[in-house]
């Protein structure tokens, strides 16, 4: 009976987020017949892919004990640079490269401020948020860039029935999973976030880890910028405002711990889809958009409370196990 109990606690602890996602999916399908239509589902996934890519970068940063508030703004800056590159050259490849390059530069500066100059990540990336948005507006003189021709294919096109942004999302999710689980970098990331001083004393090159994670985040943000501008078919210097918060929300709901050292790709994906489904069903049922914000905020609060409570439970069961060690010594 005890084993049974343990089994269920493990299942509950490990998979509760996925159960919630499935439950929500069923509730949404029942709440509105349009929810399950192919049209609606592809639409959700297109919208979700941009913020979810940001959320995957955010997850790695939070695991390592940092965060990025600048991702929405850097996305816009990278996006407008990519759009104008495309307009000038007609080369999609070059446009993507410029977008990614912009993301990398901005995030390398984030890493410089945080790792080299020891600025708190919150403040450093808040500064970057402001600077990048300003740069995007300055560069475009506050005007949207329009008439992009075939640029739209990337964001709105499909390969077979699968929308292109989804392909990018899946590729990035697999890449992130691989990095976290199968590389020294990933293992170091958890260690740095879990206890930076112990990581240093264990011979982990913390500077390198921090720069690397920001640069990877930069690649994700840059790519997200291209996908976003392509989907809306314009260069919007004021686009993607508050996307960084959507990304953080997904990561938090997905069980990534702000104390660092804990987080998974699966959790973040589930978190992102929970937020996406909720937004969508509220839209379909004409819930007031202000009301939607309240619902979203409430869910973040609940997710964090849940996280803290389960951490306390962990702490309590820790004590039990310490005693267990004593008993085992017989």
């Amino acid at each position, binding site marked *: 009976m*005890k084993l049974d109990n*343990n089994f269920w606690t493990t299942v509950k602890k490990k998979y509760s987020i996925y159960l919630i996602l499935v439950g929500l999916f069923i509730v949404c399908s029942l709440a509105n017949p349009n929810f399950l239509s192919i049209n609606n589902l592809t639409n959700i996934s297109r919208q979700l892919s941009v913020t979810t890519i940001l959320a995957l970068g955010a997850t790695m940063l939070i695991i390592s004990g940092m965060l990025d508030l600048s991702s929405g703004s850097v996305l816009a800056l990278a996006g407008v640079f990519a759009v104008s590159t495309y307009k000038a050259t007609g080369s999609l490849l070059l446009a993507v490269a410029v977008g990614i390059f912009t993301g990398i530069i901005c995030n390398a500066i984030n890493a410089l401020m945080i790792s080299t100059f020891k600025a708190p990540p919150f403040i450093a990336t808040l500064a970057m948020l402001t600077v990048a948005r300003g740069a995007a507006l300055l560069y475009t003189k506050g005007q949207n860039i329009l008439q992009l021709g075939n640029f739209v294919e990337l964001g709105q096109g499909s390969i077979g029935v699968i929308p292109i942004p989804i392909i990018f999302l899946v590729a990035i999710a697999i890449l992130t999973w691989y990095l976290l*689980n*199968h*590389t*020294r970098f990933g*293992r*170091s990331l*958890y*260690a740095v976030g*879990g*206890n930076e*001083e*112990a*990581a*240093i*004393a*264990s*011979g*982990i*090159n913390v500077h390198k880890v921090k720069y690397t994670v920001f640069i990877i985040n930069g690649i994700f943000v840059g790519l997200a910028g291209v996908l976003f501008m392509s989907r809306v078919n314009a260069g919007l210097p004021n686009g993607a405002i508050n996307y960084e918060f959507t990304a953080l929300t997904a990561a938090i709901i997905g069980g990534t*711990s702000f*104390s660092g*050292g*804990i987080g998974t790709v699966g959790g973040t994906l589930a978190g992102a889809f929970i937020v996406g489904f909720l937004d969508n069903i509220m839209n379909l049922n004409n819930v007031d958009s202000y009301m939607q914000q309240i619902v979203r905020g409430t869910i973040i609060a609940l997710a964090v409370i849940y996280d803290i409570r389960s951490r306390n439970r*962990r702490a*309590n*069961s*820790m*004590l*039990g*196990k*310490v*005693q*267990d*060690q*004593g*008993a*085992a*010594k*017989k």
Partner: protein
Amino acid sequence: MKENIKLRVSQIEKSFPGVKALDKIDFTVKKGSVHVLCGENGAGKSTLMKIINGIYQPDSGQIYIDEKPVKIGNPIQARTLGISMIFQEMSYVPEMTVEENLFLGNLPVKRFGNVNWKEVRQRTQELLVAENLPYSPTTPLKDLTISDIQMLEIIKAISYKSDIIIMDEPTSAITLKEVEKLFVKIRELKARGVSIIYISHKLDEVFQIADDITVLRDGTVVESHPKEELDIETVIALMVGRKLTTTFPKEQVPIGEDMLQVENFNYPNLFHNVNFHVKKGEILGFAGLMGSGRTEVMRSLFGLEPKTSGVVKIKGQEVKITNVQQSIQHGMVMLSEDRRRYGIIPMRSVKENTTLSNLKSVFYSCRNHKKIERKLVSEILNKMKIKTPTIDTPIATLSGGNQQKVVLAKWMLRNPDILILDEPTRGIDVGAKYEIYKLMTDLAKEGKVVIIVSSELPEVIGMCDRIYVMAKGTITGEINREDFSQELIMRYATGTLTAGGVN
């Protein structure tokens, strides 16, 4: 006789998910006496104390104070009942000042609910003067050493004017001189009729201060006697449930050529002109008082505080070590004194903590070789007798001794030539201590070098071939095994004797 009993717990039981932590505990503390609780980590001492302090509720059983049944729902109720507790592992706000810390949770207020800072200042000054401590009430805690902060905690508990004071390992971080001060204080409190429950692993101390000794093992009271009826050997045997033959598994091994030479090692304001060497097969001790610069020398050597000058030679080759990676490359590793701060990644698994410094052996050819990693970890855990439910258990859930052994296992996987141990046995139980001593001997036999920094003199005397003593940031003496004595070490450590006297 009866009215002499201050605190009595009767048939206390407490279970945590899956384990029985306390099983029908009976325990009495007499008025104006010191009752020492002994037991290995995980024996249930801390759980029992947390029940008496109201942090946990017992599943069954009853607590009596002055033979009246009481219910202690939380630490604040405990305080009103005259119970206060000094915790083993302090948590404090570094920016908080001495006076704020002393009156935390107990700030005197004026009529409108605003804090009476004048009174705080005055009472703090009184306390500091009474205890003869040289800090200003406005010094932030971050500017004090661990031992200063521990003394403050003790003063704080005393300032509540409690009748029952629980001290959980109060001497684990303070210097010998302060221990003496603490003992004087304890005797004073005793004379005033205060009852003290004292938990410690340091048995020599226990026998200095105890009136009664109770030994716990696996959540039950093994035996409880007045001190006079027990001796150290018996207590150890009761704690571990077996008789340890020798406390220190020291063996003589052949000494080889120089492994590590340090010449004119300097770090502004921390240490100066440090010269020492250590030969293959040697176990070298670094003794000295807290703050004498021992830890700082080792941390610099290991690349954690790289702003140094001087020459470091490993196997005769001069090396430049500016970070930990380089040190590891040269076969030199270090176990830090503060396990929770520099040793473990608390929420990650035993497995991940074990392979953390050896990632290349399990991450190669573009993937994590899970089977190899599990095998590697299981083998080293078995070899070092580390007890963990599974290797995927978060390390924070293990007992202190087992955590320490996992950190050691991490370094053993690197197969180091030079192992620096900074206070390796602080706060861990007798069994784990013995395992660590055994490991040191094994390494010496393999021709490796072990450097041990320790404040526990019996430990350095028992295990080392040679001891350097530091005081005020430099080496004041070097003593060979045949000349070891506590007195000689203390004379060097306190600066009453300097190098050249005995060599």
